């Protein structure tokens, strides 16, 4: 990725770059999605990518392939089968017991071998710790471009991948191309794209390649794995209702108003980045480009200005409600409902009003 300072320095020279794909890259075809397995479970970001991958493949009139790399046996087989239900035309698979745990060395080997053998034009991975670790290495091995943390992917008129991501320093987005190298690689964070509808479909073609490594070839060893306790993980990314607060709240004490409303709604609470930097809220609660992406049915943002880095984390919400004292706050540009009010005053009465409105129902439910 190019840094903003450089974009600022010479936007025109970059925009003028021409596509001149060398002959050796012209054979690169089809869209691939890396299917990430987490201890035998497919990470849902993979299905989210299959949705956007399908759209790109249809536009380009090429195949969509799922790339399954993992331990030999049931889990990888199931991941392959499931990929067809999420729109894959075919599956490439490297399954080997050496791939049980993620290790950079063995996974780069598997993925670069597949790319060099079957030559995709587009390769998408989730921007998870695994996906980022792998994508950076593979792109460097292949000497191709990689655009991180995209919020939108499309193909333009000449068939190039247009990868859009927020850029540094406020409310700007930039669209990045990998004009003359293949594959065009991009990562997308979990929850940025919707999960496509799952349709039961028969298993299609699965092309397998051997890994071609023995354990002694791999220097890095996994000594152990300590799974996170469930209680240590917030469900922010997958919550149906989220209430968040920003700097407009003025103090860490006032952030309690956000937590109280979230509590009454049975919602998860979140915040903008400055609150994490100030130490008011822990980093797992940050929403936005460098925090969590959420897709709730209802998102209530109190005292948040709506910078692009925050917006990209919440754009997938069904209903965005903003409370801000400033009528011109950017958040009103993308929220569905807005109210110009002091959040410190409104949050407590809103909490009470919700409690009054919702409690009869909840009593019915408990009684029923």
């Amino acid at each position, binding site marked *: 990725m190019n840094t903003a300072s450089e974009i600022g320095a010479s936007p025109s020279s970059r925009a003028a770059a021409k596509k001149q794909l060398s002959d050796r890259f012209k054979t690169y075809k089809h869209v691939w999605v890396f299917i990430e397995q987490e201890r035998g479970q497919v990470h849902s970001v993979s299905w989210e990518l299959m949705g956007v991958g399908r759209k790109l493949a249809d536009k380009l009139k090429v195949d969509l392939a799922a790339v399954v790399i993992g331990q030999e046996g049931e889990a990888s087989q199931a991941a392959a089968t499931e990929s067809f239900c999420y729109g894959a035309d075919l599956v490439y698979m490297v399954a080997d017991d050496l791939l049980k745990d993620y290790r950079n060395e063995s996974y780069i080997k598997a993925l670069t071998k597949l790319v060099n053998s079957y030559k995709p034009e587009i390769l998408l991975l989730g921007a998870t710790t695994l996906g980022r670790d792998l994508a950076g290495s593979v792109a460097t091995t292949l000497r191709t471009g990689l655009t991180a943390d995209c919020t939108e992917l499309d193909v333009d008129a000449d068939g190039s991948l247009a990868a859009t991501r927020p850029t540094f320093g406020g409310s*700007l987005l930039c669209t990045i*191309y990998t004009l003359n190298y293949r594959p065009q690689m991009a990562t997308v964070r979990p929850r940025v794209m919707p999960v496509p509808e799952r349709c039961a479909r028969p298993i299609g073609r699965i092309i397998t390649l051997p890994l071609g490594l023995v354990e002694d070839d791999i220097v890095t060893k996994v000594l152990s794995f300590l799974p996170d306790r469930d209680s240590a993980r917030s469900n922010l990314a997958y919550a149906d209702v989220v209430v968040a607060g920003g700097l407009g709240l003025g103090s860490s004490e006032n952030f309690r108003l956000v937590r109280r409303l979230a509590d009454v709604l049975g919602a998860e609470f979140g915040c903008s980045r400055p609150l994490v930097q100030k130490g008011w809220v822990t980093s797992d609660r940050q929403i936005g480009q460098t925090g969590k992406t959420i897709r709730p*049915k209802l998102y209530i943002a109190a005292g948040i200005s709506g910078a692009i880095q925050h917006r990209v984390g919440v754009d997938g919400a069904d209903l965005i409600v903003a409370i801000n004292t400033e009528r011109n706050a950017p958040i009103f540009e993308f929220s569905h409902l807005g109210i110009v009010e002091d959040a410190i005053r409104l949050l407590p009465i809103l909490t009470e009003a919700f409690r009054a409105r919702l409690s009869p129902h909840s009593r019915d439910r408990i009684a029923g």
Partner: protein
Amino acid sequence: MHLLVCIKQVPDSGQIRVHPVTNTIMRQGVPTIINPYDLFALEAALELRDQFGGEVTVLTMGPPSAEDSLRKALTFGADRAVLLTDRFFAGADTLATTYALATAIRRISSEFGAPDIVFTGKQTIDGDTAQVGPGIAKRLGLFQLTYVGKISALDLHARTIDVERRSEGGVQLLRTRLPCLVTMLEATNQIRRGAMADALRAARATILKWSAQQAGVDDISQCGLRGSPTVVKRVFAPAARNEKATMIEPDEQPAEALINAIFRCRPALEIELAALARGY
């Protein structure tokens, strides 16, 4: 032991402003800082040096003014600083950046001994890609340890390192061999204040300044804009939604008005919320 830390000078994001009319970034007068994530890497390196002995080299690629960041790193206690600066490096994306940094690290190796561990931050706050670390590791053939929360053991005789690596859903305890590249997670340590003696030394220290040629670059076409496979085609402001937000005019009962509006927009929500809501 030789520890090398890659740091980047970045504009202080808290003070960045976007020009309201032209939508370009207004960089004038914005102070620069060491990328905050890189301080965790620097502190981790300093701690290892204090424990095992040896030297810490800091390396940055940037404009001549990036010297300030290197000097700052020296005040924290780094032993040597190298600034890679050349107009050929301008406009580099991550692939071109890792070419330049890896080349400079080779030159540093031949002058001062090969680093046992190369450190980078998790990511920068301006580029924000987390790709530069893995790219350097690949180019130099170093074992790669990303998202490291803790270096739990180091055996200089066996040349092995054990780390706790954050992964999806848990922590991996990994063992690999030196030399390796570590990208440190945030909030894993706290940068020291730096001793008075270091501050005095830093003020007088000579910072090695290398051009592309001095760093040992033999292929200029792999540097900067020319060496970057990615091209920024368009920078633009995000579109507003088609319909503007419906504004609830604050009246005597703003809370009720807001709740009514929410349920008018999404009638199904009322039932779902009632189900979610905690019973009191």
